[in-house]
């Protein structure tokens, strides 16, 4: 995290408004968007910008998230920079088209506000909505703070357009989406320099003689997936490059993952999103108590940064994974992804404890995190995730 030294260029923004600002600064050309709690403030803020003539974009308000994403894909493959936002049921309704977007290599950027998935009906922070879309081919970034959400939104366009993959920036309902903090707003000129106009190789336009989306044979389909795989493989380094460039311009960066007080740690808390902020406090408290505990914040979840994670955790005795999400029959998704990533690390593999903490928006305080970590000291790691509270 950057330290706040000068608040003159800051505004007090919620996470959602920070995303709207990030989108505005990226100069999207088409914004198809449908409201849903707790995403709606993003849509509304962009609507305000549009009404005030502060963004030159086509704002399209169709009847559903499905149509919003359909319009987003078409607009993107017609050569426009496209932004949209959603949450919860909305991203689930888009599900079919998330595959369509990634298969079509449409570099759409979307903010997903992580909210519980019905039924039952609820509005609380829980990342099951976007994590359950991890196989759709979208790059996924998880954000801890409003400032990170703004910065990630801008970085996401650079990464998406570099590797031709759609990218979602996820932040938690209310903890980030509605929490306000002073947010540094970069100059438009700075962003313009960082993010050149979108200039795709292929796009739908009369006279270009190319068409999108035709029936293909098995071998060609296979090739599209290999191409997708290659693009995914380039994401971590592309994100690192984008993040580094952003740091050079703004002083802020977040990495592919963030290692916080991990260098001499024997225990690593591994988590994502707003939980990382809580864990950060818990780590500081445990460090103050002499415990060698650090934090590994996973910012890039898709593609899963296997190499980064392996390097970060090699030789650390214990990893405690906090999952605010739940995959029935599997458990915490970060827990399972992490175990797979560490496979074959042999003697230096940490003991991985997967904890289902805060699922459904249940409050997880620093005290609880300290308790969860403490409880793992005399417990053998289990293959499955454990419910804790």
């Amino acid at each position, binding site marked *: 995290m950057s330290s706040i030294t000068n608040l003159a260029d800051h505004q007090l923004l919620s996470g959602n408004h920070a995303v709207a600002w990030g989108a505005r600064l990226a100069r999207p*050309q*088409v914004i*198809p968007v449908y409201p849903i709690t707790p995403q709606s403030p993003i849509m509304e803020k962009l609507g305000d910008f549009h009404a005030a003539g502060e963004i030159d*974009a*086509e704002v*399209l*308000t*169709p*009847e*559903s998230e*499905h*149509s*919003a994403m*359909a*319009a*987003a*894909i*078409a*607009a*993107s*493959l*017609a*050569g*426009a920079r*496209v932004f949209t936002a959603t949450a919860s049921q909305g991203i689930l309704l888009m599900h*079919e*088209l998330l595959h*369509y977007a990634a298969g079509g290599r449409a570099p759409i950027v979307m903010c997903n506000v992580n909210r519980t998935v019905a039924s039952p009906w609820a509005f609380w922070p829980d990342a099951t909505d976007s994590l359950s879309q991890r196989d759709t081919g979208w790059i996924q970034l998880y954000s801890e703070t409003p400032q990170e959400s703004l910065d990630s939104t801008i970085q996401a366009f650079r990464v998406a357009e570099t590797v031709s993959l759609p990218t979602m920036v996820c932040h938690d309902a209310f903890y980030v989406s509605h929490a306000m903090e002073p947010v540094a707003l970069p100059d438009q000129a700075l962003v313009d320099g960082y993010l050149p106009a979108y200039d795709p190789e292929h796009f*739908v*336009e*009369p*006279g*270009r*003689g*190319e*068409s*999108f*989306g*035709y*029936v*293909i*044979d098995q071998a*060609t389909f296979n090739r599209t997936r290999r191409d997708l795989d290659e693009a995914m493989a380039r994401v971590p380094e592309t994100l690192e490059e984008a993040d580094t460039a952003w740091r050079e311009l703004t002083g802020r960066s977040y990495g592919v993952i963030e290692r916080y007080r991990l260098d001499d740690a024997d225990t690593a808390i591994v988590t994502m999103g707003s939980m990382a902020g809580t864990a950060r406090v818990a780590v500081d408290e445990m460090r103050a108590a002499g415990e060698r505990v650090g934090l590994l914040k996973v910012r890039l979840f898709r593609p899963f940064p296997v190499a980064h994670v392996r390097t970060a955790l090699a030789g650390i005795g214990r990893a405690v994974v906090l999952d605010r999400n739940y995959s029935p029959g599997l458990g915490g998704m970060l827990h399972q992804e992490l175990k797979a990533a560490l496979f074959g690390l042999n003697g230096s593999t940490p003991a991985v404890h997967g904890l289902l903490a805060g699922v459904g928006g249940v409050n997880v305080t620093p005290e609880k995190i300290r308790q969860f970590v403490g409880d793992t000291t005399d417990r053998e790691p289990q293959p499955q995730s454990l419910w804790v509270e």
Partner: protein
Amino acid sequence: MQKIDLVDRDLFNPGHAACPGCQESLALRAILNTIGPDAAAVFPPSCGAVICGPHPYSSLQIPVFQTSLESAAAAASGLRRALNQRGKHDTTVVCFAGDGGTYDIGFQALSSAVERNENILYVCFDNEGYMNTGAQKSSSTPLHASTASTPGGKPSKKKDIIGILAAHGIPYVATAATGHMNDLIAKVEKSLTIEGTRFLAVLVPCLDGWGLPDDSGVSVSRLAVDSGMWPLYEVEQGHRYTLNHDNKTRPVADYLSLQKRYRHLDETQLAEVQAAVDQDWAQLRRRAAESTEARASG
């Protein structure tokens, strides 16, 4: 002799995969060449989407964007907006969807696009069923027609898509048929002069799905018109009705008896179809007459 007023600009390529005698490809040829080269097309999965390809070959000289089955109108909206952003306001965005992608699964997106009055031309190739997947029923399938999913005949009427869209206040909505090519071409030309959403439902008898000989599509579509099963009309601004073929000269039996999908029909069912057509026709004529009166009285 009546001549066909089509100038072919070679915008539809040979070698496509449509069945012999396909009415959809015939209509596509006429519409593409009437619109001209400054256009981009959206296809949801359909016979039309198959006729487009296969990759890497295209039968259309204009660019095509293929989208998912539910999303034709939404994708067309997105394409429209992107082209606007790229300064291509004059490029026609045309959507070619089947009746399944229009009346059924794509209806929600269509209704919304019409409500937003997106500046697109939406063409529904109506062959009254899911023909590309083996001739199952859609909500466009007419009363008593047999399909793969209603083998005993469909117990409900065809959805009145034109009436529904007229109720949206859409600037222009019309029916057309391959058998009345000049009418079809004139309607496409007219639609090109109108800003906003325009909708054209083109009856394209499916030779395989309806059980018809390969050379009969054009003439069967004429019987559909002459029998009143597919009246040719247009509605402007949702309320101005015009009948383009003011002649119902044949009993529906003349039309139905040619098609295998009606082979099971008994006398009672035939009478039901006839009665429904007569009723719809009377209503249509009434609306057209009211529109004429309204125009006359200014």
